[in-house]
C-alpha cells in the first residue's frame, strides 16, 4: 500500500463525481415545501432609507413573505460581528460600526441587502423584489480609502469618526527611524495592492429549514467552516442555540477565503424559514457575487528600506492604509494587521521593523481574507522593494537577497514571528537553476531581435500558515481558537472513517486524509472515507483557510491514528499471545516481528467489535478522537522567477517562463500540491496582470461586476509552469507539513511585476499591469 501512502501521487478520489457533474452542492439540495428567495438590494452606494413599501409586491403571484430589517430587529437577530479585536496604538478598541443583516436606516454599498422576498419560484421572488418600493435619500459617496481619510470625506458610520476604524502599529518606530537616518542607502516606494473579487466557481447559496415540531433549524450553506458558522449563528446572531442548529456545508465549489464568513443572506434565510414557515433557498448569480462576496487586498502603502554600506538591511518602515469596505467582515481586522505586518521581515535578517496600519470604511463591498490574506500584501511590498533596491544599489537581485537571508533557525523577527526552519538559499538556487537565470542576457538579446522587450524578475516569499496556535492568536485578539479536531472510526470489517473539522472545497482532503491511513495501516484509500462539513456528524472543528488543513487538520488525524494504532497493537498482541512491543504493522497485517505469526487488519478490527477475546479491562470498539493545537505557525517559503516578453507597440505582456521552487515541508500528495501551486500562481498572476476592480468614484457603482469587464485569468494567459519543491521539515507538527494552498498567490505577483519593470525600464507600474498601463509606463520611460 506504499503506492497510496504519504508521498504517493494518488489521483483524487473526489474528482470522478466533480467532473461528471455528480457533486452535491447547496443549490442541489431540495427539501419538501422548499421556496425560493431573492434579496432586495440597494442600488445606491450610500443612502438613507426613508421608507420601504411592500404592499404591491406582497400581492404578486407566488409571494409567501417579504421581510425587512424591522422584523429582524423585532426578533432580536444580532449584529454581524467581527471576530478579531484590534486596538489602536493609543489603546482604544477598534471603531466598529453597526452591520445589520438587513439594512434598516442606511445603506452603505451597492448591493447592501434591504429585504428578502420568498416566493414559490425564483422568478416570482425576483419579480416581487422589483415591486418593493424603497425610498432612498442619497448621500455622498467615497470608495477610496485614501480619500475616505481626508477632511470633509463622507462619514460612513457614526462610530468611526473620519472613517478611521483603527490606527495600529507593530515593531519599534524609534529604532527603525534611527536605522533610516543613518543608512548608507534608502529605497523608498509607494505601492498599491489592488482590490480583487474572489470568484469561486460556485456562487454562494443557502437553504434554511425550520422544523416546527422539533423547534430545530438546519442550514445548508457554501461554507469553509460550518462549525464556526453554527457557533456564530447561535452565540451572536441569536438565530438558534447550537443544539437546535445543524449546519451542513456539502460539496463546495471553491472558497479562497470568501466562504469563511457568515454572510447576511445565510442568517436571513435561516431566520426567514421560521418567520415564513417554509424552507427558504437562496442562490446568487454571478453579478450578485461580485456585488456581495467579500473582496480581497486593497492596500496603499509607502515603504522605506534602509541599507548599510555592505547592502545589509538595517531597517524597514511601512505605512499602510487598508480599505475594509462598508462594514467589518468576520476576520477583516486581522488581515491587514497580524496576518500582514508580522510577515514584513520576509526571508531576511532585519534588525528594526516598524509598520503603521490605518483601516478605513468606504462605500464598497466589505474586504476580508482572500487566498493569502495579508501575506500577499506583505510579500508584494518586500519583494518589489528588494528588486528595486538591487537595481538602485547596482547588485544582482539574487546577491542582495543572499546578503540578507536568514540562515540560522529558529529566528525571532522583530514582528512577533519566530521562524522555525527553512533553507532560503536552497529554493533560490533551485529556481535560478531551473530558470537558467544566467542564460537570460542571451534570451533578452534574441527577443530584442524579434522586437520584444524581455525581462526577468524574482520573488523570495515567506508566509505563515496552518494558522494557530490558539493561545497565541487569542493573545492577539482572535475571538476563536485555531486548533483542529479529528475522529477515526475503524469499522468492524476494517474499513475506516475519518471525521475531520477541516473542510474540503477543492483541496482534495478525501484523498490526502485517506492517504494517512493507507500508508500507516495498509488499508486501501478506497476503504477509507473522509467525513466533513456537517455539524451533526462531525465533532466541533475550525474549518479550512490559511493553508491549515494539512498542518493542523492532518495533525489531529495523526493524533487520533496514534491512539487507534496503540489499541490495535494491544488487541493484536493479545490475539497472537505476543508482546505488544513486538507488533509491527505491514501490508495490511499486524505481525509479530521475527515470526510468521500475523493477524490481518480486518480481523483485528472484527475482534475489537465482537469483543469475545479482548485484553483484560479493554473497552470494545475501535474509535478514537483527538484535538490538536499546534505550538507554532508553519513557515512555507520559496523562490519564484518569472520571465516575460512585452510587446512595445501594444504594452501586452506574455509570460514566457514561470519557475516555482517551494519548500512546503513534508508533502502528502505531490500531484495535489502541484495543483495547488498551479492554482495559486494563476490567481497571483491574475492579480498582477489582469484583475482590476473598478468602482465609479462618484456613484460607488461597481463597474467590473461581470466577466465582460473583470478579467479572470484564462488558460491562454498562462504559461506552462515549472514547479519543484525543496524540503525542510516543519518541526512543530508530527508530519512536518508546512502547507501549500496560498503560496502561489503570495509569491507570484512581485515576481511578475519585477519582470515587467525590468523589461520596460520603468519601475512605476501598478497592478494589474494591463497592456494600456504597461504601454503608458513605457512611453513615460522614453
Amino acid at each position, binding site marked *: 500500500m506504499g503506492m497510496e501512502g504519504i508521498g504517493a501521487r494518488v489521483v483524487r478520489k473526489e474528482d470522478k463525481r466533480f467532473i461528471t457533474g455528480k457533486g452535491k452542492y447547496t443549490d442541489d439540495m431540495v427539501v419538501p415545501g422548499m421556496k425560493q428567495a431573492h434579496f432586495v438590494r440597494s442600488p445606491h452606494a450610500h443612502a438613507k432609507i426613508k421608507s420601504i413599501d411592500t404592499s404591491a409586491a406582497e400581492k404578486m403571484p407566488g409571494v409567501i413573505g417579504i421581510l425587512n430589517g424591522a422584523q429582524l430587529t423585532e426578533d432580536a437577530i444580532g449584529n454581524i460581528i467581527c471576530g478579531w479585536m484590534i486596538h489602536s496604538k493609543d489603546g482604544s478598541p477598534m471603531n466598529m460600526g453597526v452591520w445589520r443583516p438587513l439594512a434598516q436606516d442606511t445603506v452603505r454599498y451597492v448591493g447592501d441587502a434591504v429585504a428578502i422576498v420568498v416566493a414559490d419560484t425564483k*422568478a416570482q421572488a*425576483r*419579480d416581487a423584489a422589483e415591486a418593493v418600493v424603497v425610498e432612498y435619500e442619497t448621500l455622498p459617496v467615497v470608495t477610496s480609502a485614501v480619500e475616505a481619510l481626508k477632511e470633509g470625506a463622507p462619514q460612513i458610520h457614526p462610530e468611526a469618526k473620519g472613517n478611521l476604524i483603527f490606527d495600529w502599529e507593530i515593531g519599534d518606530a524609534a529604532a527603525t527611524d534611527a536605522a533610516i537616518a543613518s543608512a548608507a542607502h534608502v529605497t523608498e516606494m509607494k505601492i498599491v495592492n489592488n482590490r480583487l473579487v474572489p470568484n469561486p466557481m460556485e456562487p454562494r447559496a443557502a437553504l434554511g429549514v425550520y422544523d416546527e415540531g422539533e423547534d430545530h433549524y438546519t442550514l445548508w450553506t457554501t461554507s469553509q467552516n460550518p462549525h464556526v458558522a453554527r457557533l456564530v449563528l447561535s452565540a451572536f446572531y441569536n438565530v438558534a442555540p447550537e443544539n437546535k442548529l445543524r449546519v451542513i456545508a456539502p460539496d463546495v465549489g471553491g472558497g479562497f477565503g470568501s466562504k469563511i464568513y457568515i454572510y447576511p443572506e445565510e442568517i436571513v434565510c435561516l431566520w426567514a424559514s421560521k418567520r415564513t414557515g417554509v424552507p427558504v433557498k437562496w442562490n446568487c448569480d454571478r*453579478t450578485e457575487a461580485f456585488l456581495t462576496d467579500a473582496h480581497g487586498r486593497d492596500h496603499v502603502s509607502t515603504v522605506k528600506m534602509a541599507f548599510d554600506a555592505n547592502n545589509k538591511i538595517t531597517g524597514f518602515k511601512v505605512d499602510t492604509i487598508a480599505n475594509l469596505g462598508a462594514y467589518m467582515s468576520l476576520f477583516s481586522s486581522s488581515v491587514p494587521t497580524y496576518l500582514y505586518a508580522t510577515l514584513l521581515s520576509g526571508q531576511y535578517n532585519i534588525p528594526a521593523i516598524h509598520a503603521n496600519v490605518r483601516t478605513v470604511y468606504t462605500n464598497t463591498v466589505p474586504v476580508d481574507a482572500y487566498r493569502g490574506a495579508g501575506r500577499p500584501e506583505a510579500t508584494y511590498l518586500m519583494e518589489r522593494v528588494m528588486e528595486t533596491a538591487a537595481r538602485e544599489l547596482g547588485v544582482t537581485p539574487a546577491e542582495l537577497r543572499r546578503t540578507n537571508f536568514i540562515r540560522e533557525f529558529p529566528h525571532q523577527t522583530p514582528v512577533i514571528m519566530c521562524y522555525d526552519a527553512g533553507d532560503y538559499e536552497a529554493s533560490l538556487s533551485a529556481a535560478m537553476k531551473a530558470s537558467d537565470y544566467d542564460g537570460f542576457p542571451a534570451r533578452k538579446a534574441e527577443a530584442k531581435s524579434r522586437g520584444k522587450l524581455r525581462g526577468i524578475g524574482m520573488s523570495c516569499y515567506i508566509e505563515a500558515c496552518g494558522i494557530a496556535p490558539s493561545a497565541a492568536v487569542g493573545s492577539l485578539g482572535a475571538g476563536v481558537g485555531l486548533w483542529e479536531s479529528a475522529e477515526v472510526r475503524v469499522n468492524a470489517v476494517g474499513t475506516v472513517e475519518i471525521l475531520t473539522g477541516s473542510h474540503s472545497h477543492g483541496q482534495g482532503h478525501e484523498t490526502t486524509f485517506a492517504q494517512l491511513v493507507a500508508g500507516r495501516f495498509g488499508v486501501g484509500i478506497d476503504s477509507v472515507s473522509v467525513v466533513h462539513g456537517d455539524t451533526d456528524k462531525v465533532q466541533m472543528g475550525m474549518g479550512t483557510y490559511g493553508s491549515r488543513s494539512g498542518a493542523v487538520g492532518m495533525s489531529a488525524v495523526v493524533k487520533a491514528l496514534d491512539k487507534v494504532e496503540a489499541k490495535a497493537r494491544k488487541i493484536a498482541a493479545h490475539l497472537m499471545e505476543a508482546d505488544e512491543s513486538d507488533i509491527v504493522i505491514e501490508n495490511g497485517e499486524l505481525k509479530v516481528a521475527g515470526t510468521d505469526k500475523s493477524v490481518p487488519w480486518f480481523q483485528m478490527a472484527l475482534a475489537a467489535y465482537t469483543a469475545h477475546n479482548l485484553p483484560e479491562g479493554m473497552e470494545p470498539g475501535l474509535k478514537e478522537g483527538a484535538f490538536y493545537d499546534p505550538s507554532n505557525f508553519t513557515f512555507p517559503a520559496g523562490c519564484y522567477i518569472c520571465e516575460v516578453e512585452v510587446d512595445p*507597440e*501594444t*504594452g*501586452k505582456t506574455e509570460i514566457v517562463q514561470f519557475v516555482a521552487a517551494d519548500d512546503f515541508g513534508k508533502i502528502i500528495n505531490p500531484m495535489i500540491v502541484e495543483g495547488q501551486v498551479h492554482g495559486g500562481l494563476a490567481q497571483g498572476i491574475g492579480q498582477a496582470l*489582469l484583475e*482590476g476592480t*473598478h468602482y465609479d468614484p462618484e456613484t460607488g457603482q461597481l*463597474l*467590473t461586476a461581470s*466577466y*465582460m*469587464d*473583470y*478579467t*479572470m485569468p484564462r488558460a491562454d*494567459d498562462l504559461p506552462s509552469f515549472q514547479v519543484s519543491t525543496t524540503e525542510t521539515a516543519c518541526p512543530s507538527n508530527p508530519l512536518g507539513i508546512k502547507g501549500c494552498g496560498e503560496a502561489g498567490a503570495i509569491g507570484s505577483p512581485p515576481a511578475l511585476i519585477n519582470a515587467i519593470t525590468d523589461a520596460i525600464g520603468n519601475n512605476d507600474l501598478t497592478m494589474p499591469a*494591463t*497592456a*494600456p498601463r504597461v*504601454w*503608458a509606463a513605457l512611453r513615460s520611460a522614453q
Partner: protein
Amino acid sequence: MYATNYHRASSVEDAVKLASGNDEAKYLSGGQTLLPTMKQRLAAPSDLVDLRHVGELKGISVDGGKIRIGAATTHSEVAQSSDIASVCPGLTHLAAHIGDPHVRHMGTIGGSIANNDPAADYPAALLALNATIVTNTRSIAADAYFTGMFDTALEEGELIVAVEITAPAKCGYAKFPNPASRYALTGVFVARQGDGSVRVAVTGAGSDGVFRQAEMEQALKSDFSAAALDGITVDDADLMADIHGSSAYRANLVKVMAKRAVTAAG
C-alpha cells in the same frame, strides 16, 4: 429573465409575419448578446422569433469572387469555410477569433451586425469589404448600414437574410482583444480591391461605432505596406475611453493593428 413568448419561424416570410405589428418582439438568432441581456433583465421582449430553424437563412456560397453568407450562419461555419478562406482569408481569420468557442458555435453573422456592438468584429470586415446587407425587403450597402453605436439602417421588423461580399484582392484583420470580454478593444480590417482602392475599417475604438479611416485608406492606396502608415498620427478626439483603455491608447492601437492587418493581408 422575464417571461416571454417563444415562436419558431419556419421561413423568412413566417418570421417577418410573426414579428410584424409587435414592436416588443425580437428576432432571436444565436442569442449570444440577447439572451445574456434578457437574463440580466436588461432586455424584456414580449416575443422571441427564433430564426435558427429557417433553412433559407443558412449556408455559404462562393461563386468566383462572389461570397454569400446566410444571416443565420455561425461564426464557426464561416471560420471553417475553405471556400471563403480561398478568396477572403481575412474574413475566416476574423470569424475564428470572435469571442470563444461557445460563442462561435452559436453566434451568427446576421445577429452580430443587427446588434452592431461598437466592439464587435464583423462590422469592421463588412465595412472594409464594402459588403451588401440583404434583407427581406432590400439591399443595403455597408456604408449606409452601420449608422452608429448599436444603430443600423434596419427598419422595424426588417430581417437580414444574407451578407454579400465581393472578394478583394487582399485583406487582413488584426485585433487587440479586450482581455475580459474578448471583444475588440480595437480591431482593424484592411481590404484592397483589384483596382488598387483600399478600405480600412476600425471597430472597438470609435465613440460612435465602426468607422473608416480615410487617411490610412489614402496612404495604402499609393503604397500597400505597413510602412506606408508610419507617418500617420491617429487623432484620439473621437475615440472611446473606458476602464479598459484610454482614447490615446486606442489611437495607438488603431495604427498598430492597421499595420498588422496590412502585414497579414500580405
